Protein backbone atom coordinates (compact mmCIF):
# COMPACT_ATOMS: atom_id res chain seq x y z
CA UNK A 1 0.00 0.00 0.00
CA UNK A 2 2.78 2.37 0.95
CA UNK A 3 4.49 1.64 -2.40
CA UNK A 4 1.39 2.86 -4.27
CA UNK A 5 1.32 5.95 -2.06
CA UNK A 6 5.01 6.68 -2.71
CA UNK A 7 4.51 6.26 -6.47
CA UNK A 8 1.59 8.70 -6.42
CA UNK A 9 3.70 11.11 -4.38
CA UNK A 10 6.65 10.87 -6.76
CA UNK A 11 4.56 11.02 -9.94
CA UNK A 12 4.52 14.87 -10.17
CA UNK A 13 8.34 14.90 -10.00
CA UNK A 14 8.71 12.28 -12.70
CA UNK A 15 6.05 13.61 -15.05
CA UNK A 16 6.69 17.30 -14.44
CA UNK A 17 5.88 18.15 -18.05
CA UNK A 18 2.21 17.91 -17.15
CA UNK A 19 2.68 20.85 -14.78
CA UNK A 20 3.13 23.20 -17.79
CA UNK A 21 -0.62 23.62 -17.77
CA UNK A 22 -0.30 25.56 -14.49
CA UNK A 23 -0.91 29.31 -14.91
CA UNK A 24 2.38 30.24 -13.25
CA UNK A 25 4.62 27.46 -14.64
CA UNK A 26 5.86 29.27 -17.72
CA UNK A 27 8.79 27.07 -18.69
CA UNK A 28 8.32 26.18 -22.29
CA UNK A 29 5.11 28.14 -22.67
CA UNK A 30 6.48 31.43 -23.97
CA UNK A 31 10.24 31.24 -23.67
CA UNK A 32 12.73 32.83 -21.31
CA UNK A 33 11.58 36.36 -22.16
CA UNK A 34 8.04 35.79 -20.89
CA UNK A 35 9.38 34.03 -17.79
CA UNK A 36 11.65 37.01 -17.11
CA UNK A 37 8.74 39.39 -17.60
CA UNK A 38 6.59 37.55 -15.09
CA UNK A 39 9.47 37.25 -12.63
CA UNK A 40 10.18 40.99 -12.70
CA UNK A 41 6.50 41.78 -12.34
CA UNK A 42 6.11 39.39 -9.41
CA UNK A 43 9.20 40.83 -7.72
CA UNK A 44 7.89 44.36 -8.16
CA UNK A 45 4.45 43.52 -6.82
CA UNK A 46 5.96 41.60 -3.92
CA UNK A 47 8.14 44.56 -2.92
CA UNK A 48 5.40 47.20 -3.05
CA UNK A 49 3.45 46.31 0.14
CA UNK A 50 6.69 46.36 2.14
CA UNK A 51 7.69 49.67 0.58
CA UNK A 52 4.33 51.17 1.53
CA UNK A 53 4.49 49.71 5.04
CA UNK A 54 7.97 51.07 5.73
CA UNK A 55 7.05 54.44 4.21
CA UNK A 56 4.08 54.74 6.57
CA UNK A 57 6.23 53.69 9.55
CA UNK A 58 8.82 56.27 8.49
CA UNK A 59 6.12 58.93 8.30
CA UNK A 60 4.90 58.09 11.81
CA UNK A 61 8.45 58.14 13.15
CA UNK A 62 9.07 61.52 11.52
CA UNK A 63 5.79 62.88 12.93
CA UNK A 64 6.70 61.64 16.41
CA UNK A 65 10.17 63.18 16.27
CA UNK A 66 8.77 66.48 15.04
CA UNK A 67 6.08 66.59 17.76
CA UNK A 68 8.62 65.70 20.46
CA UNK A 69 10.98 68.41 19.22
CA UNK A 70 8.17 70.95 19.21
CA UNK A 71 7.13 69.94 22.73
CA UNK A 72 10.73 70.23 23.93
CA UNK A 73 10.97 73.71 22.43
CA UNK A 74 7.81 74.77 24.25
CA UNK A 75 9.11 73.32 27.51
CA UNK A 76 12.33 75.30 27.25
CA UNK A 77 10.41 78.46 26.41
CA UNK A 78 7.80 78.68 29.10
CA UNK A 79 8.18 76.49 32.19
CA UNK A 80 9.29 77.11 35.76
CA UNK A 81 12.68 75.52 34.92
CA UNK A 82 13.85 78.92 33.80
CA UNK A 83 13.03 80.29 37.25
CA UNK A 84 15.78 78.13 38.66
CA UNK A 85 18.32 80.10 36.63
CA UNK A 86 16.75 83.37 37.65
CA UNK A 87 16.96 82.28 41.26
CA UNK A 88 20.59 81.28 40.86
CA UNK A 89 21.51 84.48 39.11
CA UNK A 90 19.80 86.57 41.69
CA UNK A 91 22.91 86.20 43.86
CA UNK A 92 21.36 84.49 46.82
Amino acid at each position, binding site marked *: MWIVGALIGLAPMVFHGAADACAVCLNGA*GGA*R*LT*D*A*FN*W*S*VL*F*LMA*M*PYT*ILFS*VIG*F*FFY*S*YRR*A*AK*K*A*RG*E*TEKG*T*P*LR*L*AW*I*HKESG*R
Partner: protein
Amino acid sequence: MASEAIARKVVEPALPAFGGGEPPDRPAALSQPLVSNARLALLMLIAAETMFFSGLIGAFIVFRVASQAWPPPFQPRLPVGVTAVNTVILLLSGVAAHLARRAARAGKSALLQRWLSITVALGTVFLAVQGYEWLRLIRYGLKLSSGVYGATFYTLIGCHGAHVLGGTLWLLVVLAQARKGRFTEHDYAGVQLCAMYWTFVVALWPILYGLVYLY
Protein backbone atom coordinates in the same frame (compact mmCIF):
# COMPACT_ATOMS: atom_id res chain seq x y z
CA MET B 1 27.04 77.01 63.64
CA ALA B 2 24.99 73.86 63.34
CA SER B 3 21.72 75.70 63.72
CA GLU B 4 22.84 78.18 61.05
CA ALA B 5 23.50 75.29 58.60
CA ILE B 6 20.09 73.79 59.34
CA ALA B 7 18.45 77.18 58.85
CA ARG B 8 20.25 77.61 55.49
CA LYS B 9 18.98 74.19 54.37
CA VAL B 10 15.43 75.13 55.25
CA VAL B 11 15.62 78.51 53.53
CA GLU B 12 17.46 77.18 50.42
CA PRO B 13 15.95 73.91 49.26
CA ALA B 14 17.66 71.89 46.53
CA LEU B 15 15.18 73.00 43.85
CA PRO B 16 13.97 76.41 44.93
CA ALA B 17 12.04 77.13 41.72
CA PHE B 18 9.67 74.16 42.04
CA GLY B 19 9.20 74.41 45.76
CA GLY B 20 8.97 70.62 46.05
CA GLY B 21 6.27 68.34 44.69
CA GLU B 22 6.19 66.37 41.43
CA PRO B 23 7.98 67.48 38.26
CA PRO B 24 5.81 69.36 35.70
CA ASP B 25 3.31 67.38 33.62
CA ARG B 26 4.17 66.03 30.21
CA PRO B 27 3.69 68.74 27.56
CA ALA B 28 0.20 68.77 26.04
CA ALA B 29 1.57 68.40 22.48
CA LEU B 30 2.69 64.84 23.15
CA SER B 31 -0.62 63.76 24.65
CA GLN B 32 -2.43 64.67 21.41
CA PRO B 33 -2.55 62.18 18.49
CA LEU B 34 0.46 62.47 16.21
CA VAL B 35 -1.57 62.00 13.04
CA SER B 36 -5.17 63.17 12.82
CA ASN B 37 -7.92 60.80 11.72
CA ALA B 38 -8.32 62.64 8.42
CA ARG B 39 -4.60 62.33 7.63
CA LEU B 40 -4.66 58.66 8.59
CA ALA B 41 -7.61 58.08 6.26
CA LEU B 42 -5.81 59.86 3.44
CA LEU B 43 -2.68 57.79 4.10
CA MET B 44 -4.79 54.63 3.72
CA LEU B 45 -6.29 55.96 0.49
CA ILE B 46 -2.82 56.77 -0.85
CA ALA B 47 -1.58 53.28 0.12
CA ALA B 48 -4.54 51.73 -1.73
CA GLU B 49 -3.91 53.96 -4.76
CA THR B 50 -0.25 52.97 -4.73
CA MET B 51 -1.22 49.29 -4.85
CA PHE B 52 -3.70 50.01 -7.65
CA PHE B 53 -1.00 51.68 -9.74
CA SER B 54 1.44 48.92 -8.78
CA GLY B 55 -0.94 46.39 -10.34
CA LEU B 56 -1.07 48.40 -13.55
CA ILE B 57 2.71 48.84 -13.57
CA GLY B 58 3.12 45.09 -12.95
CA ALA B 59 0.97 44.34 -15.99
CA PHE B 60 2.95 46.86 -18.03
CA ILE B 61 6.25 45.22 -16.98
CA VAL B 62 4.96 41.83 -18.18
CA PHE B 63 4.01 43.17 -21.62
CA ARG B 64 7.08 45.39 -21.94
CA VAL B 65 9.72 42.83 -20.93
CA ALA B 66 8.07 39.97 -22.83
CA SER B 67 7.81 42.00 -26.01
CA GLN B 68 10.43 41.51 -28.74
CA ALA B 69 10.13 45.09 -30.04
CA TRP B 70 8.74 48.03 -28.08
CA PRO B 71 6.92 50.05 -29.38
CA PRO B 72 5.57 47.35 -31.68
CA PRO B 73 6.05 47.89 -35.44
CA PHE B 74 3.64 50.27 -37.21
CA GLN B 75 2.70 52.00 -33.96
CA PRO B 76 3.34 55.74 -33.40
CA ARG B 77 6.14 56.87 -31.08
CA LEU B 78 5.21 58.69 -27.87
CA PRO B 79 5.95 62.45 -27.55
CA VAL B 80 8.93 62.25 -25.18
CA GLY B 81 10.09 65.90 -25.42
CA VAL B 82 6.73 67.60 -24.89
CA THR B 83 5.92 65.25 -22.04
CA ALA B 84 9.29 66.02 -20.42
CA VAL B 85 8.31 69.72 -20.35
CA ASN B 86 4.91 68.68 -19.02
CA THR B 87 6.67 66.68 -16.29
CA VAL B 88 8.53 69.82 -15.20
CA ILE B 89 5.20 71.70 -15.11
CA LEU B 90 3.65 69.06 -12.86
CA LEU B 91 6.70 69.01 -10.57
CA LEU B 92 6.48 72.80 -10.27
CA SER B 93 2.83 72.44 -9.30
CA GLY B 94 3.97 70.11 -6.50
CA VAL B 95 6.34 72.83 -5.25
CA ALA B 96 3.48 75.36 -5.41
CA ALA B 97 1.24 73.04 -3.37
CA HIS B 98 3.99 72.71 -0.75
CA LEU B 99 4.34 76.50 -0.56
CA ALA B 100 0.55 76.81 -0.23
CA ARG B 101 0.68 74.48 2.76
CA ARG B 102 3.45 76.56 4.32
CA ALA B 103 1.46 79.75 3.75
CA ALA B 104 -1.57 78.13 5.42
CA ARG B 105 0.55 77.10 8.39
CA ALA B 106 1.84 80.66 8.71
CA GLY B 107 -1.73 82.00 8.52
CA LYS B 108 -1.02 84.09 5.39
CA SER B 109 -4.34 83.90 3.56
CA ALA B 110 -3.43 86.01 0.52
CA LEU B 111 -0.26 83.97 -0.07
CA LEU B 112 -2.20 80.73 0.37
CA GLN B 113 -4.71 81.79 -2.28
CA ARG B 114 -1.93 82.79 -4.66
CA TRP B 115 -0.06 79.47 -4.36
CA LEU B 116 -3.26 77.46 -4.62
CA SER B 117 -4.19 79.37 -7.79
CA ILE B 118 -0.73 78.67 -9.24
CA THR B 119 -1.08 74.95 -8.39
CA VAL B 120 -4.51 74.79 -10.07
CA ALA B 121 -3.19 76.64 -13.14
CA LEU B 122 -0.17 74.31 -13.50
CA GLY B 123 -2.35 71.22 -13.03
CA THR B 124 -4.75 72.48 -15.70
CA VAL B 125 -1.86 73.15 -18.10
CA PHE B 126 -0.60 69.60 -17.52
CA LEU B 127 -4.05 68.15 -18.26
CA ALA B 128 -4.48 70.33 -21.35
CA VAL B 129 -1.12 69.30 -22.82
CA GLN B 130 -1.83 65.63 -22.06
CA GLY B 131 -5.24 65.90 -23.70
CA TYR B 132 -3.78 67.54 -26.79
CA GLU B 133 -1.10 64.86 -27.08
CA TRP B 134 -3.70 62.11 -26.68
CA LEU B 135 -5.76 63.60 -29.51
CA ARG B 136 -2.66 63.62 -31.72
CA LEU B 137 -1.84 60.00 -30.85
CA ILE B 138 -5.40 58.89 -31.61
CA ARG B 139 -5.16 60.71 -34.96
CA TYR B 140 -1.90 58.82 -35.67
CA GLY B 141 -3.68 55.53 -34.97
CA LEU B 142 -2.76 54.70 -31.35
CA LYS B 143 -6.02 53.60 -29.77
CA LEU B 144 -7.07 51.55 -26.78
CA SER B 145 -7.92 48.72 -29.14
CA SER B 146 -4.64 48.78 -31.10
CA GLY B 147 -2.96 46.02 -29.06
CA VAL B 148 -1.21 45.86 -25.71
CA TYR B 149 0.87 48.96 -26.52
CA GLY B 150 -2.16 51.23 -26.80
CA ALA B 151 -4.06 49.44 -24.04
CA THR B 152 -1.28 49.72 -21.44
CA PHE B 153 -0.47 53.31 -22.44
CA TYR B 154 -4.03 54.61 -22.19
CA THR B 155 -4.82 52.62 -19.05
CA LEU B 156 -1.74 53.73 -17.09
CA ILE B 157 -1.54 57.32 -18.28
CA GLY B 158 -5.33 57.66 -18.36
CA CYS B 159 -5.68 56.54 -14.74
CA HIS B 160 -3.02 59.04 -13.70
CA GLY B 161 -4.77 61.76 -15.73
CA ALA B 162 -8.04 60.96 -13.95
CA HIS B 163 -6.23 61.37 -10.61
CA VAL B 164 -4.76 64.71 -11.70
CA LEU B 165 -8.26 65.82 -12.74
CA GLY B 166 -9.65 64.76 -9.34
CA GLY B 167 -6.80 66.54 -7.56
CA THR B 168 -7.37 69.72 -9.57
CA LEU B 169 -11.07 69.73 -8.69
CA TRP B 170 -10.19 69.22 -5.03
CA LEU B 171 -7.71 72.10 -5.24
CA LEU B 172 -10.46 74.30 -6.73
CA VAL B 173 -12.75 73.50 -3.79
CA VAL B 174 -9.94 74.28 -1.32
CA LEU B 175 -9.20 77.53 -3.17
CA ALA B 176 -12.87 78.55 -2.94
CA GLN B 177 -12.81 77.78 0.80
CA ALA B 178 -9.60 79.79 1.22
CA ARG B 179 -11.23 82.78 -0.50
CA LYS B 180 -14.07 82.60 2.01
CA GLY B 181 -11.52 82.68 4.84
CA ARG B 182 -12.15 79.11 5.92
CA PHE B 183 -8.54 78.41 6.95
CA THR B 184 -6.53 79.83 9.83
CA GLU B 185 -3.01 79.09 11.08
CA HIS B 186 -4.54 76.67 13.63
CA ASP B 187 -7.10 75.07 11.33
CA TYR B 188 -5.85 74.28 7.85
CA ALA B 189 -6.46 70.53 7.59
CA GLY B 190 -8.22 70.94 4.23
CA VAL B 191 -5.13 72.49 2.65
CA GLN B 192 -2.86 69.93 4.29
CA LEU B 193 -4.84 66.92 3.02
CA CYS B 194 -5.22 68.31 -0.47
CA ALA B 195 -1.49 69.09 -0.65
CA MET B 196 -0.69 65.53 0.53
CA TYR B 197 -2.85 64.02 -2.22
CA TRP B 198 -1.39 66.36 -4.82
CA THR B 199 2.14 65.42 -3.72
CA PHE B 200 1.25 61.75 -4.28
CA VAL B 201 -0.10 62.48 -7.77
CA VAL B 202 2.97 64.55 -8.64
CA ALA B 203 5.46 62.02 -7.24
CA LEU B 204 3.83 59.21 -9.19
CA TRP B 205 4.16 60.91 -12.55
CA PRO B 206 8.00 60.78 -13.02
CA ILE B 207 7.85 57.01 -12.36
CA LEU B 208 5.15 56.55 -15.00
CA TYR B 209 6.96 58.87 -17.41
CA GLY B 210 10.23 56.96 -17.05
CA LEU B 211 8.50 53.62 -17.42
CA VAL B 212 6.06 54.32 -20.25
CA TYR B 213 7.85 57.01 -22.27
CA LEU B 214 11.56 56.34 -21.74
CA TYR B 215 11.95 52.61 -20.99
